[in-house]
């Protein structure tokens, strides 16, 4: 495969597409698929065949505003239709070239206007199982540029220049990580993609792997060239069967086109990728635990150093990046590091994909430039809290993150700002809570999660989270005391300071942040035996008073 051949494929696809008068793109991501998008696509194909116009019906990845699904976009007019079902197929085909179907129209300008799509630029435009669709949108161009025109150190320089930081949560500078692995001694090195999206409430990695799998593979291949690796692994959750099958197809197609394998693009560069399945362990998102899991062992973390960059998979230097990080690589190579550097805030560059869920009108995936205010994401892009309820908090960073209250919504989103507020960027889950959510109960939910997901290797995490769960349960059912609260705070700092890995070190965050911003709710539960949101049942209190009566 050469650049010319790549451009020829892109040209062929464009010529093929020009034969059609219209394109009907159907979102077939999990959320839309669960609402009957597959039947809808079949109906559209049938209706298009019966009609006089030449229409291409295409299955695509996630278009974004899932709460309005199933979504259909008609091109070239870029007409977005919402809540479409199979019975609308004929009306849509009939309306081509005329006025849009009135009952399906949606006005989501405000939702899209503030978004900047880099990672999701292909979502909604390509069929994820067709490599040609990806190539037609500049796919694999970056890889070929890198292989034919750039040195490994040149690639690392470009990534460093872009200011890209790891999108898995920690925010470690990507260029620095690549440089460390490149400099590490040894002939055998590995590149690993962390697709173990364990954070409940986040699904952008799933969406990228399912909707644009080649982009992840291209990012990994570029990384492998830069650090000197010839073997890669994608570690995917077993809970994402569609992602596994899309990646398998994509790898096969990439090999067939000579974009993976030996002597890629007639250069001495060899690279191939294997898929490894996770098996439902949140701790495997931690890099040393992930390595243990790929090696076929229990996913327990190890103390660092040594870091995987010097001693990772089978003791070899290993580069581990998140799905979204790899998805940013190709556009950075194509457009230059400066282009990326100019987006975002002072110390957080580029864009970030957030999974907007919970009590919010427009749930789904959004991609925004770093530095955008939380208020803009929630009120303008997200459409605010529906049903006449009031906003209470937004939870970011999953079980390792925290709850941010209403009066801090004007802070710009960045790694550092979120950390300062007692939360973290995490992988990008953003769960909005309204006045019907009890913050003590939410803290208890996360601690229960960390308790069951603790691997049990170190005592502070194993025993600490269990004790914190007991204390929070007591507070929730009305039998907690102020002494329990003091003990809880004490435990939080112990677990935070002394746990072995990130899971334990961040497990107290949901408790600490709710204590910081919603302490009055804890006091209400303890002193007045009352749950302000009406969530906690206070059963223990009731049975006690019954005994007295």
């Amino acid at each position, binding site marked *: 495969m050469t650049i010319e051949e790549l451009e020829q494929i892109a040209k062929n696809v464009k010529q093929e597409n020009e034969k059609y008068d219209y394109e009907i793109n159907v979102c077939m991501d999990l959320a839309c698929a*669960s609402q009957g998008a597959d039947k809808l696509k079949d109906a559209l194909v049938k209706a298009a065949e019966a009609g006089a116009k030449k229409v291409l019906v295409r299955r695509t990845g996630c278009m974004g505003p899932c709460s309005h699904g199933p979504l259909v976009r008609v091109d070239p007019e870029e007409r977005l239709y919402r809540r479409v079902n199979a019975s609308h197929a004929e009306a849509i085909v009939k309306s081509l070239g005329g006025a849009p179907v009135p009952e399906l129209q949606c006005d989501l300008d405000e939702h899209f206007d503030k978004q900047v799509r880099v990672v999701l630029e292909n979502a909604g435009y390509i069929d994820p199982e067709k490599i040609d669709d990806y190539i037609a949108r500049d796919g694999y161009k970056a890889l070929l540029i890198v292989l034919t025109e750039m040195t490994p150190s040149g690639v690392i320089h470009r990534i460093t220049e872009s200011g890209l930081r790891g999108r898995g949560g920690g925010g470690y500078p990507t260029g620095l990580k690549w440089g460390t692995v490149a400099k590490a001694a040894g002939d055998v090195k590995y590149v690993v993609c962390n697709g173990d999206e364990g*954070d409940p409430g986040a699904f952008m990695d*799933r969406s990228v792997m399912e909707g644009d799998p080649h982009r992840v593979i291209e990012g990994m291949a570029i990384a492998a060239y830069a650090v000197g690796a010839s073997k890669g692994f994608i570690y995917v959750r077993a809970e994402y069967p569609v992602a596994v099958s899309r990646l398998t197809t994509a790898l096969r197609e990439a090999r067939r086109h000579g974009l993976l394998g030996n002597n890629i693009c007639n250069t001495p560069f060899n690279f191939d990728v294997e898929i*490894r399945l996770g098996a439902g362990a949140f701790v495997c998102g931690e890099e040393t635990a992930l390595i243990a899991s790929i090696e076929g062992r229990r996913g327990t973390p190890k103390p660092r150093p040594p870091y995987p960059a010097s001693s990772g998979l089978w003791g070899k230097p290993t580069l581990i990046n998140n799905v979204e990080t790899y998805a940013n690589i190709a556009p950075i190579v194509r457009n230059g590091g400066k282009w990326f550097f100019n987006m975002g805030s002072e110390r957080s560059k580029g864009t970030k994909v957030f999974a907007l*869920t919970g009590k919010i009108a427009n749930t789904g995936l959004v991609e925004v430039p770093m530095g955008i205010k939380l208020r803009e994401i929630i009120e303008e892009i997200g459409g605010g809290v529906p049903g006449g309820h009031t906003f209470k908090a937004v939870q970011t960073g999953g079980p390792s993150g925290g709850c941010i209250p209403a009066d801090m919504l004007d802070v710009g989103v960045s790694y550092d700002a979120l950390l300062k507020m007692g939360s973290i960027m995490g992988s990008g*889950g953003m769960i909005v*809570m309204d006045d019907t*959510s009890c913050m003590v109960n939410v803290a208890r*939910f996360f601690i229960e999660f960390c308790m069951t997901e603790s691997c049990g290797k170190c005592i502070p995490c194993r025993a600490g989270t269990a004790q914190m769960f007991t204390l929070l349960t007591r507070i929730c059912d009305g039998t907690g005391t102020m002494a329990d609260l003091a003990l809880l705070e004490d435990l939080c700092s112990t677990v935070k300071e002394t746990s072995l890995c990130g899971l334990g070190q961040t497990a107290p965050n949901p408790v600490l942040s709710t204590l910081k911003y919603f302490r009055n709710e804890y006091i209400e539960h303890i002193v007045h035996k009352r749950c302000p949101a009406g969530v906690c049942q206070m059963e223990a209190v009731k049975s006690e008073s019954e005994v007295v009566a």
Partner: protein
Amino acid sequence: MPVIAPPPLPSEDKRWKIVNGTMRKNGFARHALIETLHTVQSSFGYLDDDSIRFVALSLHVPLSQAYGVATFYHYFTLKPPGKHTVTVCAGTACYIKGADKLIAAAEKRLCIKQGQTTPDGQVSLMVARCVGACSRAPVALCDGEVVGEVTQDQILEQLERWSAQ
């Protein structure tokens, strides 16, 4: 190191050949343990002592490591699943939208706890950590099919349909 002959297949069951195929594809390497257990579970529905023993022997992995892996990861189950499975997602978004009430209702209707199967082997009630369909929370999977914005009535109706079969 002396080459130890791989153990014979535990029975005539053709599914063992699929399991063996996964191990062969990975060159019987020790690191294929999790991959192989996935194949066992997708072929047989669960892992039992015989299958864990067979895989451990074939890959030259200590029994303790194989059993350790089988019990460490939540995805693996050591009990056979029911004929039908309803899985309620209890990720954060689903939890905020009342997944706990759905689980409680299903538990009450089936008279079992989450993670259990009804005594007649008809229905298993499972809880997932997040299936990634958070934008349509709460979510349940009925025999693997994702149902978004699921209600208590929908789940109970589904259970009713299964028990009527």
